[in-house]
């Protein structure tokens, strides 16, 4: 297994994980290492195999083959020890709607053998960190979607694990709650907690990740820091031009423009990769006009993970 990018200890290793659902191969030999104290993000579109991976790691789902190790020890025999040190925040709400937020957190905390005053203290900490301490005696059925999500987090972290898995915790919630959750994850990083975070929102991943693994169709596509991944598409900006159908271009004339490095033609329109911060717009528009291309819209994008994903897979993250 590969050494991590950082000189930290590997807390979790996944090697050649495979899983099929009937005829559909959800994971096709996925391998990665998670280092201590990092925010490790699994980025990929829906159906990429992220949740399957998480469910296998959490001991809910069995893998067809592959190895997993926690602190160098195989997970099989050490599963209960691993679970004791693992917090899971699933994508779907896993809380009781008919008992109070406090009772929810207390119950799930008690499953880890924590009792009495230490449990009370941890419940207060967990609820306070997700901003629900003041509504701790209210039932979740009276909460907004975002508050329920935050309670879902408190229930998963009350036992103060050293590794926490978040499976798309911000899907379908309001921007305020999303910010709360992302800030919370950043604070975990500051506290030295290891986080495994799955998402198909590249903006979130860019914001919080220490290291990123891009997955698609159950395979690892790329791995690295945000910067190293962005470097794979070069230090470029991209102009996306939406045009009428059936445009025929003379690509060479665009490539002859100072700063234009690549021309892409796709269903979404035309793409022009240009050297970063090079002001090519006037020349580009003039050349488009010269080639009788009618511009419907024009957009400039910086190098980001969405573009990395597009570059590596040929399709969009949200596709």
């Amino acid at each position, binding site marked *: 297994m590969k050494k991590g990018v950082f000189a930290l200890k590997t807390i979790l290793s996944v090697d050649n994980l495979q899983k099929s659902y009937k005829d559909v191969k959800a994971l096709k030999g996925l391998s990665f290492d998670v280092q201590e104290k990092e925010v490790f993000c699994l980025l990929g579109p829906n159906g990429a195999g992220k949740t399957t991976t998480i*469910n296998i790691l*959490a*001991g*809910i*789902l*069995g893998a067809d083959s592959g190895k997993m190790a926690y602190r160098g020890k195989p997970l099989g025999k050490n599963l*209960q*020890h691993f*679970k*004791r040190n*693992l917090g*899971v925040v*699933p994508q*779907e*709400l*896993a*809380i*009781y*709607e*008919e*008992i109070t937020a406090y009772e929810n957190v207390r*119950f*799930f905390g*008690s*499953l*880890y053998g924590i009792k009495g005053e230490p449990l009370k203290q941890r419940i207060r900490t967990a609820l306070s960190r997700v901003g629900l301490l003041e509504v701790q005696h209210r039932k979740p059925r009276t909460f907004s979607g975002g508050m329920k999500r935050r309670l879902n987090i408190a*229930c*998963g972290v009350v036992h103060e694990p050293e590794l926490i898995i978040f499976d798309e915790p911000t899907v379908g919630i309001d921007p305020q709650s999303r910010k709360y959750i992302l800030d919370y994850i950043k604070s975990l990083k500051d506290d030295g907690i290891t986080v495994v975070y799955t998402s198909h929102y590249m903006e979130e991943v860019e914001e919080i990740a220490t290291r990123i693994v891009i997955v698609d169709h159950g395979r690892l596509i790329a791995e690295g820091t945000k910067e190293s991944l962005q470097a794979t598409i070069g230090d470029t900006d991209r102009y996306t031009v939406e045009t009428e159908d059936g445009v025929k271009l003379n690509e060479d004339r665009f490539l002859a423009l100072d700063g234009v490095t690549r021309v892409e033609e796709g269903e979404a329109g035309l793409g022009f990769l240009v050297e970063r911060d090079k002001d090519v717009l006037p020349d580009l528009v003039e050349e488009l006009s010269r080639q009788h291309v009618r511009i419907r819209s024009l957009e400039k994008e910086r190098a980001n993970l969405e573009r990395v994903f597009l570059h590596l897979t040929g399709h969009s993250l949200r596709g």
Partner: protein
Amino acid sequence: MLPIIRRDLLNLLINPALLLYNTLFPFLLIVVLGAINRDLYDSEVITAHDYYTVAILVFMALNISIIATNSFMERSVKRPNLRIGYAPVAEWKLYVSKVLATFLFCMGSILLVSAVVARIYGVGFGGAYFAFLALLAALAMLASTIGVAFCCLLRDEESANKILALVNLFLALLGGVFFHPRTIGETFAAASAFSPVRWVMQASMRAIHDNDYAMVLPAVVIMLALGGVFLLICRRTFRLEDYL
């Protein structure tokens, strides 16, 4: 496992529909069936309310299988149950806790209903109340394991409930809960020998009215053994991923 049993039991107790289904519904059945069939029973030996209290409490213990499926895999508890699976808790505790919580819920309901009926109609169970309770407890335990095992096999609470509702009704008819099986035919009456409901009904009636306890222990032992078989089925078929 105690915190899980306590949580499961509380979940059942705070569900008004289940609570009414296990207390008010059987009580009303006893009241109505007892009133309708009042003339069919000799009030000197056995009243209609005596008979239907026993019969409906047996039916109640049998029907607890449907509550067990609820406790185990109903939509609102499915995800929290999955979260229990994230904790360092042995998998068997997940289904055994549901069996035990449902069993306790059922026995509490039975005690309540029988106390109310005894108070209102003077049903005394012929001094064999504890033998009767033992039979009901064994049946409730069996029914709870059946409910959970059906969920494990079918991997779905709704399908399990639909099938169990029919199975329970069939067993109740076979067991002579509402009327004697011979009313339907001799073949049906002969088949009733295989219904645990029939065993409980016969053992209860003999204990209560004839002071004959010979059938009580065998019936209890057989039902508990069958319960053990269904627990083994749970062990073989339960998969945490069914909560996904």
